């Protein structure tokens, strides 16, 4: 990047892409080398309280598998063919030593596969701190907040022991504030793409967010700010694309080629589930009062409707697709779901029936993170975009 000049959009995207492509986690290793004595903690999708990892002085690192860039040699020996691709790819990363810089790994309550992977990790890597993150599922907010607060306090103590730094309330509050800013930046990026999808291709937004899970949050905020400025300076040209919401890709991530294929087939992605943990909390966490309690209450009062949480409102699943489509000004929904993904696939009939009752056009397909052929997706998405254009307003 040329010194003294505002970085161009291409430079920024290239920087993010380099971080995303690097399956040796060079950005994390560089940070550790530059910060002697500090440690890093990994987390799997979907949601973990990154504020606590950060407040304990650890670098939070998103573990999203190796996508289509990693040959699976050891990972397949751990899983049957009917289990999704993500865990075998995560195991491959770990068994090949690529995750050996992580002192702790958190496994959220996304599904039984990730849950059981936590136990496997305990056996495979007994020196690492491993914690299964069981978020509250009760609709009773007070009971849920009390439970979650106790889980978070346990995490503060444990990660503090891992890092050697037990955070003060001021540390925790500072991290909460920083992640409020991170989420606000993600919301800004999503809002900008929603308003001007021709200016912010999802391919670029995606690699930016992936990179953001491997660098300190302050660096991500700076990178995203520069990207938004570059987008303003280099506006794109609107096309007559259909606007779609991509649903179901919240855990195992699609290969970048799939996202590119959808957009090149004539669809603007104006909302999605990619890397959902980045924007799981929809509102700022209050900075007054006890920061751990504030995080706990923010979780239970959050309105995020996702497959990994119990939906207590009987109408919730029916309504959510209509609401998302309306909020994004979308024309239709693409259910893009990882094969063998219980949360996404079990939810899909409920979500799709709600959408179809509201006359929202939908298509569905399945992928794996290592899918290498995109022609069928391009054709499906292209036909879908055309059909919306031809008959959508009828």
């Amino acid at each position, binding site marked *: 990047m040329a010194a003294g000049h505002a970085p161009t959009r291409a430079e920024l995207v290239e920087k993010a892409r380099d971080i995303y492509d690097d399956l040796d986690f060079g950005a994390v290793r560089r940070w550790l080398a530059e910060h002697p004595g500090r440690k890093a903690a990994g987390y799997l999708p979907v949601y973990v309280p990154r504020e606590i990892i950060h407040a304990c002085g650890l670098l939070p690192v998103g573990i999203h598998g190796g996508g289509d860039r990693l040959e699976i040699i050891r990972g397949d*020996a*751990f*899983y*049957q063919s*009917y*289990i999704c691709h993500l*865990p075998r790819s995560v195991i491959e990363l770990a068994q090949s030593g690529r995750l050996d810089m992580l002192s702790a790994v958190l*496994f959220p*309550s996304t*599904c*039984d*596969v990730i*849950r*059981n*992977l*936590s*136990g*496997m990790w*305990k*056996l*495979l890597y007994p020196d690492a701190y491993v*914690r*299964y993150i*069981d978020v*509250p*599922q*009760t*609709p*009773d907010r007070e*009971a849920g907040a*009390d*439970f979650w607060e*106790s*889980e978070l306090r*346990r995490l503060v103590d444990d990660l503090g022991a891992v890092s050697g730094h037990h955070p003060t309330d001021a540390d925790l509050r500072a991290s909460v504030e920083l992640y409020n800013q991170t989420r606000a930046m993600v919301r800004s990026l999503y809002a900008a793409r929603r308003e001007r999808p021709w200016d912010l291709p999802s391919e670029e937004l995606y690699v930016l967010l992936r990179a953001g899970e491997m660098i300190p949050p302050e660096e991500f905020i700076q990178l995203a700010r520069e990207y938004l400025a570059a987008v303003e300076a280099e506006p794109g040209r609107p096309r007559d694309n259909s606007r779609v919401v991509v649903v179901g890709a919240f855990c195992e991530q699609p290969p970048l080629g799939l996202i590119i294929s959808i957009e090149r087939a004539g669809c603007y992605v104006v909302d999605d589930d990619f890397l959902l943990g980045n924007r799981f909390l929809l509102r700022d966490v209050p900075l007054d009062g006890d920061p751990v309690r504030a995080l706990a209450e923010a979780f239970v009062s959050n309105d995020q409707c996702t*497959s990994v949480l*119990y*939906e*207590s409102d*009987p109408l919730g*699943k*029916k309504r959510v697709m209509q609401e998302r489509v309306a909020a994004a000004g979308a024309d239709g929904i693409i259910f893009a*779901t990882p*094969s*063998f*993904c*219980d*949360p996404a*696939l*079990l*939810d*899909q*009939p*409920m979500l*799709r*029936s709600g959408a179809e009752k509201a006359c929202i056009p939908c298509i569905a397909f*399945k992928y794996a993170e290592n899918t290498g052929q995109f022609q069928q997706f391009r054709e499906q998405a292209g036909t879908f975009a055309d059909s919306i254009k031809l008959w959508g307003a009828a």
Partner: protein
Amino acid sequence: MAEALKDRSMLLQKEMLARHFERLARAPETGEPVVYTFVPGNLTELIRSFDALPVLPEINALQSGMRKLSGDYIAEAERAGHSEDVCTYVKCDIGMMRSGNLGPGGLKLPKPDLLLLSYTGCYTFMKWFELLREEYDCPTVMFHVPYQGDGVLEPEHRSYMLRQLREQVIPALEKATGRKYDEDKLRHHLALSAKAEDDLVAVLQAGKNRPSPIDGYFGTVYYVGPIFSAFRGTEEGVEYYRTLRAEVEERAALGLGPITPDGPLEGERYRLVVEGPPNWTSFRDFWKMFSDEKAVVVASTYTKVGGTYDFGFRHDPSDPLGTLADYCSGCYTNLNLPSRIDMICRYIEEYQADGFLINSVKSCNSFSAGQLMILREVEKRTGIPGAFIESDLVDPRYFSAANIKNRLESYFQMIDARRLGKTA
């Protein structure tokens, strides 16, 4: 196929189930409230204390599998948009409901007055009752049982469960049934549970005998039926387990092997521990592949999904809600992988097994994810070679008899070879 031989306890169980399903069929007329819930973490004593009748959808699904109906039910659900990749119990249940909701005895099952979502050890349970709620349009109460990620029931998790029982589950049951919570009545049911559990454990541990008078997998899925479903905490349940225990102790005293559908098994040759649920669509054929080789399963993990009584847990009437929380937390699929491996290794040692087999079912990630790691760890710790076969719960498309039989035969040959000292 010849008529399966049945002993006294099996006939007793058959009568109990018939009465239960007749009562369920009459519930719309009699006004008896009906509560649907799941086997792991079932709160049967609490449900019974409200004079409500439990319905266990997994039991209905496996019964549909055994009666060769599940294939059509699954197809019905897949036509309605349910993925081929997900749990076949769920699809079988939804297909059954859409096909008239006829239960195991051919009688119509009533609609639930309440879906009691005991979220214990299985992610799919959450979605299953969200899906059923759409079908039945009835109230649902969530009871979140935290997973034993670190291998213990943490005190905060117990408090969380107790609070949900008091503040969510009991009020929901009161509302659904129109009856007040009666703790003495709950204690009464819990005391009956503990009696039956004592007898069940005696039956399970009879597998330590040589020869084993029980099959700890195929036979024991029948033995655990009443206690995993509607009969824990009932007089009928107590009577069933008293009868069963007497039968099993008599067989043990006489040095007899287990009863199989083709008659008593004599000349036990292989003693196995099995991990994972059975296949239900070809259950009898599957069992026969073992019994033909004189292979007896002396202990299994699947028969602990509804409670790990053989490790000491008993429902405790002196702490009625606390004991329900303890019970739920300890169900097999709520245990982490290291705990599961410890349990299997203990079984191999205490039951003097010479083989260890995993039946990995496509439908159930709660069991299946990590089973290849379990296999390696158990082999490493015990020195006992393991076998790995794949099938499904109730989807007949995923039971390949020839393939499974081949694998089993090879495995038994390997055990023979080891005995002869031909391999390391």
